């Protein structure tokens, strides 16, 4: 059985991913620190997967990177520049975020979902935004469903629309927050293949995932987090085959 990607690599679309650095990033909800002095570096065009049990601060970390939740201290650097000294909207334009529950706009068609921010954030004309939206939908294999509303699409298709929506903004970094956790099992692979394709074509990606197979095959670096800290990180082979910390050993024994 062959698993295929909806994206033919021959279409020549390559991405220019930027570097992403987290330096002693600490984030809090109220008085409680949920992320404590996390540092990690994602080199341009590479993929870092973050794994860890629930409550380890993985999703919070992603929300700190594009400042959907303001960091308490530390720094996030996109292409070497701190995002904390820039306008949040300007930073977010350069960073794509894909959510666990897709968060598509239910009263917009797939095409309109992709085109909305092109029009209202990037300032493209209506025709131009539609054209780009079609192109991006084509790229994720959904050109024929451009006129469908989210409720008429499967979870896998919805998530691919969400990825197209993020890609349309031409981000330098893509963040994935458990992008396949809400999908029916048979549709997971299609979305993961799409993500793998992005990685292969030069996108810088920070991926929170429970798909250990994906992390092992696609990631350049895997980070294991627990209780708001990075416990262990390294190449996927090292991490999965020779876990050092008892916490990671325990975690892997539970999920694999």
């Amino acid at each position, binding site marked *: 059985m062959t698993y295929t990607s909806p994206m033919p690599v021959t279409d020549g679309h390559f991405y220019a991913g930027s570097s992403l650095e987290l330096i002693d990033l600490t984030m809090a909800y109220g008085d409680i620190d949920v992320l404590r002095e996390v540092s990690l570096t994602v080199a341009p065009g590479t993929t870092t997967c973050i794994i860890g049990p629930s409550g380890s601060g993985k999703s919070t970390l992603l929300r700190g990177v594009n400042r959907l939740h303001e960091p308490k201290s530390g720094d996030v650097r996109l292409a070497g520049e701190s995002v904390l000294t820039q306008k949040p909207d300007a930073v977010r334009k350069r960073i794509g975020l894909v959510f666990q529950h897709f968060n598509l706009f239910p009263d917009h068609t797939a095409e309109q979902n992709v085109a909305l*921010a092109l029009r209202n*954030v990037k300032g493209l004309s209506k025709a131009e935004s539609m054209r780009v939206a079609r192109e991006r939908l084509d790229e994720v294999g959904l050109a024929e469903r451009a006129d469908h509303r989210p409720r008429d699409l499967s979870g896998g298709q919805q998530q691919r629309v969400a990825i197209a929506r993020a890609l349309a903004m031409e981000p330098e970094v893509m963040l994935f927050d458990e992008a396949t956790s809400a999908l029916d099992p048979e549709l997971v692979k299609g979305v993961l293949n799409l993500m793998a394709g992005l990685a292969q074509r030069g996108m810088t990606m920070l991926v929170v995932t429970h798909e250990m197979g994906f992390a092992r095959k696609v990631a350049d670096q895997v980070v294991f987090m627990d209780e708001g800290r990075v416990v262990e990180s390294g190449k996927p082979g090292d991490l999965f085959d020779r876990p050092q910390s008892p916490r990671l050993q325990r975690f892997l024994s539970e999920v694999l």
Partner: protein
Amino acid sequence: MDWLDNIITTFFDFDAMLQVLPQLFAVGLVNTLVISIWATVIGIVLGMVIAIMGISPSRWLRIPARIYTDIFRGLPAILTILLIGQGFARFSQQVFGPSPYPLGILALSLIASAYMGEIFRAGIQSVDRGQLEACRALGMSYGKAMRLVVVPQGVRRVLPALVNQFIAIVKDSSLVYFLGLLVSERELFRVGQDAAVLTGNLSPLVAAGLFYLAITVPLTHLVNYFDNRFRTGRRKATPPKSGLDEVEEQNPTPMLTYGENS
């Protein structure tokens, strides 16, 4: 069957009804609709402002919205109408002339906006937080995200409640007669009431009542119909479709090997 005749002549005197019918149509119905529609339109605009203020991150917008809502929702309609209608009569006279309509409509709008503000707020807040997050993550400002994505979804959900509010306004519009109306300014209630007093028979008032029901009952049922449709969703049942078909569908050239083939 004396009592039955009594009831019929008191409430259902056909001739008395027929006599007042032209006035109910030409004067009463028109004026009731004019007052109600104006009050609804202004109430919607004010209500939306109050709702947006009410969910604002800034307390300096939230607190005034809260107070406004508490006051105009908490007072009897007749009291608000009299206070506004008489209190600002001199001012209104200079701007709009002698008609009590502008102030009557304003008072009804203020009352309606307090309710509508709450309706809008509930609708907007019922929209999943992920919608706003998705917009913000794309670089959209808070204002644009609300205007383009969140508010339209919220409003759609509360359309039935808004129609109910229009029905309430139609009924409350009868209270404007307290401000004193010229013959040509009378709305449904006042037309019926005048005729009833004149003839010593309640049938014209019953006829006016039938006009109110003719407006409100179909609307109520229309709302229920749409409400049901929204609730059950507009999807028709489709035959079961295997998720595997979709997997088949996305099989162009084999390429990526995240999967089993390593």
